């Protein structure tokens, strides 16, 4: 009987702890907002070339998704090779900036760490090529530098 009461009390405490935790308002996320023009001019072409293939980050199943010409179109009615629509640019920008959310800042964020080789400070990336090569060679890769300077707002735009 004592055991049953002890178990019941423990369950009650655990339940209230869980409910209490759920009741806490999550802190609002501070999503970085680097230049949308810099994204369109400099970053988006790199993402189209390196990430946005339909079976990769052109898939609507992926959180980080990039849409555009010659890749997956956000609106299937869009001509395959028509220029990127405003909607595609806006959505790709939002998904990309969301990938910059990280406790230690944008330079440590998934957008900048996942496409690097692990030995170059990368965080691991399932979608490396058939030779195990990450999308960028390292922090000295000009394409990565373009992403990084944009991400931290140092691209002058």
């Amino acid at each position: 009987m004592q055991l049953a009461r002890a178990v019941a009390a423990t369950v009650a405490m655990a339940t209230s702890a869980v409910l209490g935790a759920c009741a806490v308002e999550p802190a609002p996320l501070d999503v970085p907002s680097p230049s949308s023009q810099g994204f369109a001019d400099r970053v988006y072409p790199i993402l189209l070339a390196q990430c946005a293939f339909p079976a990769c980050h052109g898939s609507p199943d992926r959180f980080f998704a990039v849409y555009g010409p010659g890749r997956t179109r956000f609106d299937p009615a869009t001509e395959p090779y028509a220029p990127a629509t405003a909607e595609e640019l806006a959505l790709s920008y939002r998904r990309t900036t969301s990938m910059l959310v990280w406790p230690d800042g944008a330079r440590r964020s998934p957008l900048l760490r996942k496409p690097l080789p692990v030995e170059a400070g990368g965080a691991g990336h399932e979608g490396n090529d058939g030779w195990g090569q990450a999308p960028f060679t390292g922090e000295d890769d000009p394409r990565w530098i373009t992403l990084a300077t944009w991400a931290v707002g140092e691209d002058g735009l």
Partner: protein
Amino acid sequence: MSAPSGLGRAVVLVLVLAAPGLARAFSDPERYDAPTLEGGGGGRHFTGSPIDGLSCAVCHRPAGRPELTVEGFPTTFEPGQRYSVRLSWDASLGSHALQLELSTSAGDHAGVTLPAPAPAGRCEGSATGELATGLRTRGIRRIVEVSDCGASEVVVEMLAPDEPVLYLTAGVVRSDGSATPDGDAVLELRVTTTRAGDPASSGGCGAATGTAGLPLAALVMALALAERRRRTS
């Protein structure tokens, strides 16, 4: 075929692949050199070569069980020797498109030329059909293309350079004719050959049906190893 006996033993590989398939708008080789903002590949040709490691599987998801036969690619090669490499497939199952390279580890082409095709290398397999095959030179690369117009083979000549390892890589898509992303069969082919007299490397034949192929293979191997350990313990 000019492969020397004992060294250039013809390699015949029959690759049977489980494949699913997803193609999207990005499938026209004419667009591979175009800027990405115009829907192009930005110079990617999706051969899966050492310097163009992405293959057709980044756009197409495998569906089906295509077979591809590779003949004439030697297990070891003699520098300066000419080899005739033939890839063939069953065109009655659907039109196949290929992007192919024979290259060094640095990505230089391996003395690649494209002889005039036999009827099987022409559209619809017809002696009067249009050429199904083409050769694009892009810097150090030579990319062999096969259009999806009903050909059933491509023959490529290779003048082997003096390199430790050479690679045959190809992205192969067999269309289901639906003009949709789904239903295409996909093959990523990678075969290596080593210079005669060099220590054996870890080369050989490899093929995957998509980017998930390797992790799945690793999982199967790990499970098999675990089972073997369980039985022996």
